[in-house]
């Protein structure tokens, strides 16, 4: 069917390309491979969740079709049957569809990497293809990007492997997903990506020096980009994923390509657009903002009244203040639809309701005196009278009884019953699945939506619903018992994204601009690897502490990192020492008093002493370690008194030998500062003590 390609082509795409005969292909990944939408996505895959009463995957397919894609491969994993059923019923699988959709399902996909490896194995793509997730909502015309991509590939043979589509939007924009915030350094002329880093949670950003020393004289460091998660890939991308079996996500890939640029010679480019709209619904926060953007017509022509899915009875009308009404909607007396409201067909609303910025699905019933603001109600929801809902999601079949109040960021998953007379606190998640089922499944380390449903079924022992949590007639389990349970807090953050702390972003931004300004600073290029290594070591140690990993394994891991980043043994030691000594600062902030510092450091030293011992063997190693210690305390000059304690502990733990310390003390001083350091009283005492001890031991030896 793909043979009838040529008819649909868009004028500007087709210019002077001889490969044009090939139909444009796309790979659509209809699985998120994470559990952001968790209790909701337990019942319905994310791609089928309704956004503006239309399944998200339909937006993605419409986007692909309108850019002229003629063949789409939809990869499904979690609940693939549901996705398949949906697609077979939709207009995309009608014989007249200009975009031929192939559905490929497998339970074995664990990540984007697996999907692309499968693409390569099955040899599905023959030409450049568009890679998107099943939850991307966009109306960007990528034909321009496609053209640039093709042009680049023609000019220098197959060097550019990927063009990522970004939308310009300044920081603080509500449609920017903070998890996806990136900082990108790129060559202004060639649009080549030089550096790509996610900024989430980072206070400090580091740029490898070599990106500034590159041939081009103009480059940009940008933080005003919104990742649309649309990428134009060459067929090599799939091959590269096969070659590098550890690539899981696109950012792994991008990082890999950038790191290995010199070796493999592959490049990644960027396409920044100002027009159009593109965003990925990666958490509920994004769901909220994309929904409201859609209702506010930012995604035109993908508007609710356009009925682009071409389904019977889905049409609705658009009137002033962005109020959309489906067929057979009834509205009680005195009810107001203030603005940005979308109401699905056959929904009835009682009297004196106030509805604003909300989306209400099909077949819902809403009682009298209901206040809805930023409420997202899916199909067949029943809301009784006197209910108030603010910025919450209410899934299919949920029932909210009389006088219930849902505060911000509540989620009622499928078929939950709440109330009556209850106020759910902010961020409550209620689901018919018990959270404990979930915990038992937690050993699934891949964090995929993919879950063993079967085995949760045999646990039919229904636990009683807690009337204090969900109301006297309520049905459902609260997923977030209290705020002090860290895991549940994480869950809420996952669902709604990290909206609550907008500060780090602004921090990192200023940092970024600062960094970009003083790029003339002369730092050797390999600093990049060393820093990366340092971060990795820190991560490893942290994990070791949290998960109680045996020191032998830590050593093993550090050794493998050493090879990965090509670090000399000497550097390993210096970095290790540094990381350990800085660890308390890293964890508890830099405002520690010396007492607190030593208090938290000394136990750590004890825990990790086998790691040290593994690396510090030759006399030279001891000196290197000591000089690293010295260097650190020279920097942290307020804590110099702690140095003695550290050295003492290390001596006691037999990490350092006394000769080495003495030798370091007598010879190591190279400049004023270190000489100053050695005049420290505590240190002097310690050395003296050591000398005496040595004398004694030598006497004993004789």
């Amino acid at each position, binding site marked *: 069917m793909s043979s009838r390609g040529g008819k649909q082509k868009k004028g500007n795409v087709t210019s002077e390309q001889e490969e044009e005969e090939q139909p444009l292909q796309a790979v659509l990944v209809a699985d998120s491979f994470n559990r952001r939408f968790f209790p909701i996505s337990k019942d319905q895959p994310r791609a089928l969740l309704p956004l503006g009463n239309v399944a998200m995957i339909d937006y993605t397919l419409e986007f692909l079709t309108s850019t002229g894609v003629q063949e789409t491969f939809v990869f499904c994993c979690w609940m693939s049957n549901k996705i398949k059923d949906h697609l077979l019923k939709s207009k995309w699988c009608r014989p*007249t569809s*200009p975009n031929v959709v192939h559905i490929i399902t497998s339970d074995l996909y664990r990540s984007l990497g697996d999907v692309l490896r499968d693409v390569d194995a099955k040899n599905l793509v023959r030409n450049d293809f568009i890679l998107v997730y099943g939850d991307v909502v966009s*109306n960007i015309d990528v034909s321009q990007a496609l053209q640039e991509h093709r042009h680049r590939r023609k000019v220098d043979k197959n060097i550019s492997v990927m063009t990522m589509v970004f939308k310009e939007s300044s920081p603080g*924009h509500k*449609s920017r997903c903070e998890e996806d915030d990136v900082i990108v350094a790129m060559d202004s002329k060639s649009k080549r990506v030089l550096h790509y880093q996610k900024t989430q949670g980072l206070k400090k950003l580091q740029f490898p020096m070599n990106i500034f020393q590159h041939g081009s004289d103009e480059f940009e460091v940008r933080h005003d980009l919104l990742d649309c998660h649309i990428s134009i890939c060459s067929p090599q991308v799939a091959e590269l994923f096969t070659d590098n079996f550890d690539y899981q996500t696109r950012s792994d890939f991008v990082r890999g390509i950038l790191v290995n640029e010199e070796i493999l010679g592959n490049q990644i480019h960027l396409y920044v657009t100002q027009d159009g*709209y593109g965003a990925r619904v990666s958490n509920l926060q994004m769901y909220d903002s994309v929904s409201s953007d859609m209702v506010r017509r*930012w995604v035109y*022509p993908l508007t609710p009244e356009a009925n682009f899915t071409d389904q019977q009875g889905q049409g609705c009308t658009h009137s002033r203040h962005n109020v959309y009404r489906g067929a057979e909607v009834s509205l009680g007396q005195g009810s107001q639809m203030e603005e940005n409201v979308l109401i699905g067909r056959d929904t009835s609303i009682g009297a004196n309701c106030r509805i604003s910025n909300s989306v209400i699905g099909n077949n819902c019933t809403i009682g009298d005196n209901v206040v809805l603001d930023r409420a997202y109600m899916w199909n067949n929801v029943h809301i009784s009278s006197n209910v108030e809902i603010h910025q919450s999601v209410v899934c299919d079949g949920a029932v909210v009884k009389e006088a219930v109040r849902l505060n911000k960021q509540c989620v009622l998953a499928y078929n939950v019953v709440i109330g009556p007379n209850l106020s759910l606190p902010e961020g409550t998640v209620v689901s018919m699945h018990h959270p404990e089922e979930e915990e038992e499944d937690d050993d699934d380390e891949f964090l995929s939506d993919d879950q063993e449903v079967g085995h949760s079924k045999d646990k039919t022992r229904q636990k009683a619903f807690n009337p204090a949590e969900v109301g006297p007639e309520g049905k459902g389990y609260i997923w977030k018992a209290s705020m002090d349970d860290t895991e549940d807090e994480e869950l809420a953050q996952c669902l709604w994204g990290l909206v609550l702390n907008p500060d780090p972003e602004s921090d990192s931004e200023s940092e970024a601009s600062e960094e970009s300004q003083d790029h003339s600073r002369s730092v050797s290029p390999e600093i990049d690897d060393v820093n990366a290594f340092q971060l990795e070591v820190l991560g490893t140690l942290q994990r070791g502490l949290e998960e109680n990993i045996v020191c032998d394994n830590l050593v093993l891991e550090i050794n493998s990192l050493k090879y990965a980043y090509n670090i000399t043994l000497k550097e390993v030691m210096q970095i290790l020492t540094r990381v350990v000594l800085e660890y308390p600062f890293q964890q508890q902030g830099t405002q520690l008093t010396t007492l607190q510092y030593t208090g938290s450091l000394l136990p750590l030293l004890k825990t990790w002493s086998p790691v040290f011992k593994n690396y510090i063997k030759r006399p030279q190693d001891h000196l290197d370690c000591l000089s690293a210690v010295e260097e650190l305390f020279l920097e942290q000059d307020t804590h110099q008194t702690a140095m003695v304690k550290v050295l003492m502990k290390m001596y006691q733990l037999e990490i350092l030998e006394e000769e080495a310390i003495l030798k370091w003390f007598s010879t190591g001083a190279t400049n004023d500062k270190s000489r100053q350091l050695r005049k420290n009283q505590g240190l002097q005492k310690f050395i003296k003590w050591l000398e005496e001890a040595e004398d004694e031991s030598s006497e004993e030896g004789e």
Partner: protein
Amino acid sequence: MPGADKEADLTERIEAFLADLKRGGCGTGPIRGSGETARETTALLRKVTAQARWSSAGDLMEIIRKEGRRMTAAQPSETTVGNMVLRVLKIIREEYARSRGSSEETDQQESLHKLLTSGGLSEENFRQHFVHLKANVIEAINELLTELDGTTDNIAMQALEHIHSNEVIMTVGRSRTVEAFLKDAARKRKFHVIVAECAPFCQGHEMATNLSKTGIETTVIADAAIFAVMSRVNKVIIGTQTVLANGGLRAVNGTHTVALAARHHSTPLIVCAPMFKLSPQFPNEEDTFHKFVSPHEVLPFTEGEILSKVNVHCPVFDYVPPELITLFISNIGGNAPSYIYRLMSELYHPEDHDL
């Protein structure tokens, strides 16, 4: 089976057209001009007539109506599509009547008495089978296509009657018809054109560029300056998206401002509108009347924080009431707004008004 193949091809063509309509117009109005849309619709309907299975005029009308409903639903603001469907329906009625031998005239001149007594032409009457009907209908549609091809030229030909030397003409936005009209006049006469830029899409800029390329003295003004400049203007010549059944206009944003200013200064307002833009719609149909596009042009998406605090709208059309319009120039000559109802009954059959 070649027949099935043809049908599949036909449905595919229709789907492609529908999809195009739906995506059509990312802000600056439709990608193609409405003239082209009209031609494409008619060509498609001709294809339907030629390839669909029907045995009598009634069947054919039913098929055309069905497709027509889908086409109009795809982009309600593009009334040209609906108009063309009505025209084709009218053609079928006429051809059927001719085949039966009754005069077309009787059909057209419906008196109140007739309406009351006949009870309308029942569909039964269209059941008769005629061998030549298909060929005749296709022939008539071809004539319609020829007429469509010539509309712009027909309108432009009348330019010299309306534009005189050294006049100052104001126009707003960009209209292909007006552009041709002015260019035609410029071949013989010298005059000055003031173009209102028509924010936020600023189609006026393109119009001005095109005009000045042919040597017309052109000035672009901001929309806010329309009233101030109007006192110097001799004539306002504008295009429109749709001519409504009451003689009003649905035209690009800013036209109402121009029309009011023209009325204030008693400047004549001439509307260049080909007949295919005449729609049986009345301006009270709120649902389909407006078209709101992405507010990007009004307040760019890149703005950041402010966007979550404000509501931004970007309507595309204005309604201009018929009182403000002096004259319509169509491909069949000039008409006053009050005469539109008559043209309407000539072009469309009253029973078809709602598909």
